[in-house]
C-alpha cells in the first residue's frame, strides 16, 4: 500500500480496491498501519470499500461509512460477521479489525 493514500471511501481504480492475495499485501497493510474493510449496510444491496487508519476509532470509521451510505443521525458502529457489535470507543486495531474484513454498518443506540 502507498503510505500517502487517503483514508475513507475507495472506488474502483484505487490500488487497494481489489484484493491482492498473499502475505505481501498483509505486510504492507501492517507497515502502513492502515487497512481496507468491506462494509455492508442494511439499506444497500452492495458493499463499499473503505481505507482506515488502524488507530482510528470504530465510531469515527463507522461515521465515515455511514455518511458514504447516506445515513444521517444515529450512533453508527460495525458488526462483525460473527455478530459482535464493536465498541465505538476502541481503535480499529484494539477492536481486532483485520485487513479486508467484512463488516456490517449498524446503529448502536440503545432503547428507551
Amino acid at each position: 500500500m502507498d503510505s500517502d493514500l487517503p483514508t475513507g471511501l475507495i472506488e474502483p481504480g484505487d490500488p487497494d480496491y481489489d484484493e491482492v492475495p498473499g502475505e505481501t499485501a498483509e505486510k504492507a497493510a501492517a507497515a502502513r498501519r492502515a487497512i481496507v474493510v468491506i462494509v455492508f449496510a442494511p439499506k444497500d444491496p452492495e458493499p463499499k470499500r473503505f481505507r482506515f487508519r488502524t488507530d482510528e476509532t470504530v465510531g469515527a470509521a463507522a461515521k465515515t461509512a455511514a455518511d458514504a451510505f447516506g445515513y444521517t443521525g444515529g450512533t453508527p458502529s460495525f458488526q462483525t460477521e460473527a455478530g459482535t457489535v464493536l465498541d465505538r470507543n476502541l481503535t480499529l486495531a484494539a477492536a481486532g479489525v483485520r485487513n479486508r474484513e467484512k463488516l456490517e454498518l449498524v446503529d448502536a443506540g440503545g432503547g428507551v
Partner: protein
Amino acid sequence: MSALPSAVARASAEDELGAAWAWASRHGWAIHWDHGDLLLRAATYHAPASRLVEVTGQLDGYRAIPPAWQFVRPGTDETGKEWFPAPGPGSVFHGNIVICAPWNRLAYAEQGGPHNDWSGPAAWLQVSGTTVAHTIGDMLATIDVHLRQSPEMMP
C-alpha cells in the same frame, strides 16, 4: 391509521426489499413479503432460547408512518410473552412486549404504546436520542442486534 394509498406504501416498501433481502441472506434471516396485505414476515433462530423467532411488520401507510412490528408465534399472528425475546442491556425489547423504537408504530401512545413524547408516528423520521432505523433493512438489523443480546424468551 394512515390515508396513504396502499399502492404508495407498497411501492415504498418494495423499493427497500432488495436491500433487506440482501441483509437477511448475510445474517441468517428468512423474509417473506405478502404483496397484497403489505405484511413482512422475518424469522431467524434465537440460539439462547433454542427456538425460531418471527417478527411481522405491517407496512400500510409506509413511509408516512412506520411499520407496526411485533413478535409473533412463527407462522401465525398470535402475540404473547412466550413469543417475545427477553431484553438484554439497553434493549428495545420491553417487558410490555413492545419493540420500543420510533420506527415501530406500536411504540406510540396513539397505538397503545408507552411513548407520547415522540410527536406521534407521522414524525418518526425526526426522533433522535434512541435507535435510528429509517429503512426496512435497518429496522431488521436493529432487531437482530438486540436479539443477539437477548438471553432467553420472556418468562
